[in-house]
């Protein structure tokens, strides 16, 4: 059984004109691979402007005309080309857009949710379904005849969510569904996304809020400067020591409730020859400056870093690189080893204090 959605080696660049007729290719996503199973929620986590929304727009085929895309998108084992994307979007794959500005300001919300219909029979059926879905999300009949400007932010979000679910899609793409919502509405959205999973749907959740990702997703992919640098199971995010990439660790430690730890450094503006995190990396090697690490599997975790060696199904790693990597791994494990000792000492001290 294949995956519900597979994205392989996707790269996106935009052609821009700078100063007259000089063209410039701006690379925004590089070598992105990700997959989603049925009944699975995968979160894509990254800073604003790192190109997360473009992934959603690629899957649905709504990128602007100057975008150049390489790599492929598979849905239920079939490669999606533009024609196919147009056929299944809104039916088998639906999008909750990032902004409530995606609603048509001149159209009543119920009409927008129903959308285009071939004949009266279809319209009646869809209207009935629309009423059901709206009711499920607590939008009563008076809401049907409102225009978007008459809705509060939370209601508008619910309209977007209901519209996306009206056609009972197999895959839902939720693009930043929560920022700017108060705690109660965030809670509701999280519940909605979870219930989709229970009904056997796949969900791609695009967000920059770690909390929301932690509470819904099965796996989390970390985006940095247009690259996926780590895909890890959600349990490992509870303790930053279980995470591999230094940026992922920094991200988790920077949460207010995890210590609000400061990490210096900003993303590079343009594509660099080596690892995108080279400039800020605490465990960088000499080769990281001019060589790009590939996304590899290490103990079931996908990681893009030279400090980790490929393991898993393909055990055959060439001898030379193998030995090099072993050395670097030993260094890492020694470091973590000594940290462990320190923390044990701390524990001992605490125990002593407790006894005292």
């Amino acid at each position: 059984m294949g995956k519900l959605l597979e994205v392989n080696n996707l790269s996106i660049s935009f052609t821009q004109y700078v100063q007259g007729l000089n063209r410039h290719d701006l690379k925004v996503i590089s070598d992105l691979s990700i997959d989603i199973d049925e009944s699975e929620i995968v979160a894509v986590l990254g800073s604003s402007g790192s190109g997360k929304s473009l992934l959603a727009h690629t899957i649905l085929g709504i990128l602007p005309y100057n975008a150049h895309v390489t790599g492929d998108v598979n849905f239920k084992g079939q490669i999606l080309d533009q024609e196919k994307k147009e056929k299944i979007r809104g039916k088998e794959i639906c999008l909750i857009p990032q902004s409530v500005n995606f609603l048509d300001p001149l159209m009543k919300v119920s009409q927008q949710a129903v959308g285009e219909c071939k004949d009266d029979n279809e319209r009646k059926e869809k209207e009935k379904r629309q009423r059901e879905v709206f009711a499920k999300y607590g939008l009563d009949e008076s809401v049907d005849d409102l225009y978007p400007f008459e809705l509060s932010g939370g209601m508008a979000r619910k309209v977007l969510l209901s519209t996306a679910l009206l056609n009972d899609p197999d895959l839902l793409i939720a693009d930043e569904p929560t920022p700017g919502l108060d705690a109660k509405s965030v809670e509701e959205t999280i519940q909605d996304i979870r219930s989709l999973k229970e009904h056997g749907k796949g969900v791609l959740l695009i967000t920059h809020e770690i909390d929301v990702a932690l509470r819904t997703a099965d796996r989390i992919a970390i985006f940095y400067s247009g690259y996926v640098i780590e895909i890890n199971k959600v349990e490992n995010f509870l303790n930053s020591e279980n995470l591999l990439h230094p940026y992922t660790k920094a991200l988790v430690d920077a949460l207010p409730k995890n210590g609000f730890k400061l990490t210096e450094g900003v993303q590079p503006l343009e594509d660099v020859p080596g690892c995108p995190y080279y400039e800020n990396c605490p465990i960088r090697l000499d080769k990281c400056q001019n060589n790009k690490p590939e996304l590899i599997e290490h103990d079931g975790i996908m990681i893009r870093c030279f400090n980790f060696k490929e393991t898993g199904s393909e055990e055959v790693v060439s001898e030379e690189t193998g030995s090099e990597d072993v050395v670097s791994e030993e260094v890492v494990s020694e470091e973590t080893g000594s940290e462990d000792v320190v923390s044990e000492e701390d524990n001992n001290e605490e125990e002593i204090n407790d006894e005292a």
Partner: protein
Amino acid sequence: MMKLKAENISFSYNKKRPILKDISLSLESNQIIGLIGDSGSGKSTLCKIMAGYITNFTGDVTIDGKEISRNGFDPVQLIFQHPEKTMNPKWKMEKVLRESWIPPQDLKDTFGLKDNWLTRWPSELSGGELQRFSILRALNPQTKFIIADEISTMLDAVTQVQIWEALIKHCRANDIGILAVSHDKDLLDVICDDILYFKELNHL
């Protein structure tokens, strides 16, 4: 030390539906006060009133008991959630910054501002990079109070720490008060001296 005071503020966009009623709060220049509330409850409207963007309200906004002069540089500066919406898209970043003042190099370093960003257009930088400009722009030496309306909501956790650390460091050293508005209770717990609940302030 100075004191920014809002007294009995009431306001409505639509006569039938008042949004703020008899809100009073005060902020001293050595304080960081958090303000938390539901979406759509009127937090941003209050921010705009205190920073002088909305003038047809009832009530008083004063610094040390004196009405704030809205001519020239306003000592109460508002920083918005979406920096890209507060910058002229046809100005390069250097001009955007210079509209307010030319900050010294060490302050630029504190905020991690790279020199090659200055020659870029706003559309070429990410939200986190633009927000650094919009904060630095508000830190003109004449600024006495900063109202930060969800300034880190759209940023990743690492950038959020960087921006708040730099802003708080500068404000503590220069006796500038901060009113931090956010949904994120965890964040306000870490950065603020005290937290106010909008629901309790608003007498609707």
